[in-house]
């Protein structure tokens, strides 16, 4: 058995080596987290890229959720088996950007192997989200989304109300929606929408050290009055039946909206394509509501979603292929296709212009809401954030939000908990990555 194993190892080695030597075209691999309809679109784009040239062959592999994909990439990297490109989500970006030597920065890659790089070609909202502290773009924004309010038009008409602009509006219309037989609001992913983007929308600082961009020596600032006010309202809404919580999984909350049980749902602009297929009613989209009592001048939201990172340790040949692939991905036509099929926003100004020119927004004005929201005037705290172990910090938030919602914790206790536990994690991250 042992001998057989060694033989298998040797065989794998030989095959790997000869595979490289004869490979024509050069193989490049992408690991991504785009399931469902999104995955089908990625497959179509992969096929198109492969058909567009014959020097490189791209293989796209779906690795499960965002966390699973990142985990798999890390494990593979440690074993020297990493893919050329991996999709890493917003919350994981600190882990990859702060580890010097793990990534080939996209800006350097494009300059060295590609057609050059111009950060200003990207729309303002996405430019610096995946950049390092010097403003160099490290990961290429790929599926950039932003939280939107989806509303069931039929439900709103039945209740005789308009979609809310502010949370004050929402409080006014919620009783009418309840009367009409709906749960007024549900949401997928509360840390993303009711914490991170809450801060961006109201232009509130969420962490010290310039939201974490300047240093890993950083403290979380979630324990603030605006957040606490908002969450005591959310708790209140849940108790009054204005707010339905169907669990952490994205799907169950979205399904409640699709079933027509929930009148309005906070989701991602990237959900647009899927909803168009699954919902059997007319729905519209609008900006993420804000509190007029906090600000009269709401700002844009963060981009969410994920970016593509070229991992280090690959050959020149493969990097050339990666550069080529990135070039293909940022082409206006590709971006427009991606935008149209999924609802993720186009990441370059050219692509946005193309979508406008093609008349896409005349047919489906709702598809433009996401990018319009991202293009709202920027504030001091709308650039993004860079926080270590943020995956765990989101877990911490979920935990306390859930305890708050079911009445196990007061709002104060929940946010004290979030602050202490997040700071401990940030502290561990600082000591690990310095």
């Amino acid at each position, binding site marked *: 058995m042992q001998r057989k*194993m060694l033989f*298998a190892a040797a065989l794998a080695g030989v095959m790997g080596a000869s595979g490289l030597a004869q490979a024509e075209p050069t193989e490049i691999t992408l690991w991504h987290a785009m*399931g469902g309809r999104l995955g*089908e679109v990625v497959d179509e784009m992969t096929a198109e890229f492969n058909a567009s040239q014959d020097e490189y062959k791209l293989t796209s592999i779906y690795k499960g959720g965002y966390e699973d994909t990142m985990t798999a990439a890390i494990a593979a990297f440690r*074993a020297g*088996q990493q893919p050329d490109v991996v999709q890493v989500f917003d919350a994981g970006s600190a882990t990859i950007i702060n580890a010097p030597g793990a990534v080939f920065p996209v800006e350097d890659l494009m300059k060295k192997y590609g057609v050059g790089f111009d950060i200003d070609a990207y729309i303002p909202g996405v430019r610096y989200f995946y950049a390092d502290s010097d403003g160099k773009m490290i990961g290429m924004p790929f599926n950039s989304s932003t939280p939107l309010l989806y509303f069931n038009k039929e439900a709103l008409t039945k209740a005789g109300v308009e979609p809310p602009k502010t949370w004050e509006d929402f409080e006014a219309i919620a009783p009418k929606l309840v009367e009409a037989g709906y749960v007024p609001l549900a949401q997928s992913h509360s840390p993303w929408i009711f914490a991170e983007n809450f801060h961006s929308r109201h232009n509130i600082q969420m962490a010290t050290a310039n939201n974490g961009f300047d240093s890993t020596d950083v403290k979380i600032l979630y324990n603030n009055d605006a957040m606490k006010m908002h969450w005591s309202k959310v708790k209140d809404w849940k108790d009054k039946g204005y707010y339905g919580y169907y669990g952490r999984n994205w*799907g169950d909350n*979205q399904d409640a909206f699709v079933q027509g049980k929930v009148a309005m749902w906070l989701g991602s602009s990237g959900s647009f394509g899927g909803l168009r*297929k*699954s919902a059997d009613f007319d729905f519209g989209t609008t900006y993420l509501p804000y509190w007029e009592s906090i600000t009269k001048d709401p700002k844009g939201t963060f981009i969410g979603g994920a970016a593509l990172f070229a991992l280090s340790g690959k050959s020149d040949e493969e990097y050339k292929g990666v550069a080529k692939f990135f070039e293909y991905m940022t082409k206006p036509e590709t971006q427009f296709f991606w935008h149209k099929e999924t609802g993720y926003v186009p990441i370059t100004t050219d692509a946005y212009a193309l979508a406008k020119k093609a008349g896409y927004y005349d047919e489906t004005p709702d598809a433009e809401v996401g990018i319009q929201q991202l293009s709202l005037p920027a504030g001091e705290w709308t650039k993004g954030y860079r926080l270590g172990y943020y995956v765990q910090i989101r877990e911490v938030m979920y935990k306390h939000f859930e305890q708050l919602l079911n009445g196990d914790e007061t709002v104060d206790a929940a946010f004290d908990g979030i602050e202490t536990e997040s700071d401990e994690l940030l502290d561990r991250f600082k000591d690990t990555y310095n």
Partner: protein
Amino acid sequence: MKPRQIIDHIVLILGCLFMVLPVWIALTSSTHSAETLFREGLQLWFGDQFVENYRAVLLEQGGVTKTSTALRMLFNSLILGLGFAVGKIVISMLAAYAIVYFRFKMAEFLFWIIFLTLLLPLEVRIVPSYAVVAQLGLLNTYTGLIVPLIASATGTFFFRQFFKSVPDELLEAARIDGAGPIRFFIDILLPLSKTMMAAIFIIMFVTGWNQYLWPLIMTTDDSMYTIVIGIKQAFQVLYEGGELPRVQEAFALTILAVLPPVLVVLFFQRWFVRGLLESEK
């Protein structure tokens, strides 16, 4: 029938319902359309989508799991189940044979080394185990999937006990006939162990088929996914949502995942029970 016996039957029937109903609902719901399940809830009786759903799950690439076809995954599970069972039996039988039938210096020490495996479940060494397999270049290979799992203290204990119970006279007689250790093993011990091997085989096949954590970590290529990993992927797709949940296909996948090991257990029930009683001891 006496009232006491009626109560016995009622309790047993309730127990059976508790065991069977969940999978029954999975089976019946797997024959409906996504629309029906989504609008009307899970179904207790069969629908008319049996062929469509199972065909989609078995044959369509990127169906409910967004990865391989269930057919491919079933094949991988079969290899894992067989490899796991055969591997465990072979190496633990050999080790037990050495320990029981040979006088050699390190016997005791080696026995304790094997015993250590009981103390080190996969969960406590998962990250480094992955690194080892990766360094050997065994990621996404059947070897890498199976070999790290087949060391087994329980298997070795079990055969050790069994060999000890074999009468010494057999060995004496064999030696008088001039049989060496290999001849003795093949001609005498193997035939005697047949039932035991079959019993252990059933248990180990089921255990191998149902492995979760290890395949989850070490298969990064979807052509290597087992059906149980397919279940995880189906769950992931439902979790993330974005489309009308394909609950019917998820259920079809669960039925396909349980059918082979359940059939094995039912067909070989006698051996299965015996193997379970012997191997867990």
